[in-house]
């Protein structure tokens, strides 16, 4: 058996905020198998972004261990993160922002640019390749940030509310595109969202994080067959899962 792509074991994380201690995560354990799509839902401020940051290697846990592909080697550069704040570089045009990953990986620029160019229409960024980020709408910025993450071709993806600023239609398009890509390339995906339906539609497994200090409150498998279609969300099975998730979330 191949090792798990991501293993988080009993991880705790505290922050010091102006004197008092904020207990962000408390003994969180989770894992994602190679090629698995795992979603994280949970109240705002429960530590989801912190968890992704820890997994990416941007922080070290105060206690507990994190393994990628079975090892505890440095994690930076092994997980593709799409941060919650889009963090586009104001001094780079959209296209140059998109090509950040390929650039860092010293990949052929022309090839990467062709790939990006081909995806621009799907991301609703056609005609904006040469504009600066300040000239984009909120949703366009978010889509640019997602495209930037994807163009780095990571094998493990950590996406922090990638569709938060998108309308339902655009969102659906992006979802389906993400699933297509995922099915083709088999990345491992950690997906933070506030939309329970979205989590069900996309994931193999959904984790509910409890409010601060964050712990795993519930873990639900989503055994809906793939490829997924929108109407599967209207099945009884989906309704059941939705109910369990909403209950765990206190709704």
């Amino acid at each position, binding site marked *: 058996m191949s090792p798990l792509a991501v293993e988080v074991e009993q991880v705790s994380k505290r922050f010091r905020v102006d004197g008092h201690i904020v207990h962000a995560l408390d003994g969180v354990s989770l894992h994602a198998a190679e090629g698995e799509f795992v979603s994280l839902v949970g109240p705002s401020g429960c530590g989801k972004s912190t968890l992704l*940051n820890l997994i*990416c*290697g*941007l922080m070290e846990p105060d206690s507990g261990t994190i393994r990628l592909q079975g090892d505890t080697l440095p994690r*930076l*550069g*092994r*997980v*593709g*993160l799409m*941060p919650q*704040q889009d*963090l586009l*570089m*104001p*001094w*780079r045009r959209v296209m140059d922002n998109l090509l*950040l*990953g390929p*650039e*860092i*990986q010293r990949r052929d620029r022309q090839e990467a640019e062709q790939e990006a160019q081909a995806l621009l229409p799907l991301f609703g960024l056609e005609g904006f390749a040469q504009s*600066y980020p*300040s*000239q984009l709408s909120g949703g366009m910025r978010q889509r640019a940030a997602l495209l930037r993450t994807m163009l*780095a071709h990571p094998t493990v993806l950590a996406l922090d509310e990638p569709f938060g600023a998108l309308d339902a239609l655009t969102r659906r398009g992006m979802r389906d595109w993400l699933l297509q890509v995922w099915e083709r390339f088999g990345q491992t995906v950690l997906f933070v969202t506030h939309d329970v339906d979205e989590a069900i539609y996309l994931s193999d497994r959904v984790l509910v994080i409890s409010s601060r200090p964050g712990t795993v409150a519930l873990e639900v498998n989503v055994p809906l067959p793939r490829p997924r279609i929108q109407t599967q969300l209207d099945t009884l099975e989906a309704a059941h899962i939705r109910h369990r998730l909403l209950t765990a979330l206190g709704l």
Partner: protein
Amino acid sequence: MRPRFYRAFRQALPAVALIVGLLALWELLARLLDIQEWLLPAPSAVWSAGIDSLQLLWPHVVRTLVETLLGFAVALMAGLGLGIAIDLSPLLRRAIYPLLVASQTVPTIAIAPLLVIWFGYGLLPKIIVVGLVCFFPVVVNTADGLRSASSDLLALLRTMGATRGDLFFKVRLPSALPMIFTGIKVAITYSVVGAIMGEWVGASRGLGIFMLRATNSFRTDWVFVSIFVSAVLSLGLFGLVNVVERLLQPWRFGRQEHWEELSK
């Protein structure tokens, strides 16, 4: 071409107007108060002295300009290099920063004899003086500018497996550019005076020498001619830096959108 020229003209108008106004006032005062010419010559006197001494002045100007440019190039490289080094290594910051500050407190004339003994009367000591005078603003602005990069952005790049070099060239440096240029603008402004001071260490040609000789012969009008020339040189260099700044940062100085225009 036409409107562009017109725009440049309109841009320069306020400065020209102010300068002309000040000169007129000075001329007036000089005539009314009957100030001795060797003390403070009227602009008209400076002007005619300038015309007269053009031929005489020319080789001095060329010499000073060469010193200025070479010295400034050295200052720029040293300043950027040190600023970057300071930013990269906290140890270096703590070790070297005090020395840099101290280096600025040594008056040139105090080390002039040493400079001459070690480097002679050629170009080198002048380049060193200009370098010493100019590198400091570049260092401080570079070091502070590099530190101002967004830590979130740096973190993002690190998740992509960015090397230190990537972080530097893709985030720190672009973030620091505005401040670096501010430093360069201060430095280039000092560079001409730096060259003049360098010439006082010992030289046979240059604006500084011209100025010294003019002072000694009580030719205050010539002193002012050389001040005027050095001001023009400085302004030219300063303007050049401004142009480069704009060219290198299109995202800051691009054609203004409505939004930005209003939010000023």
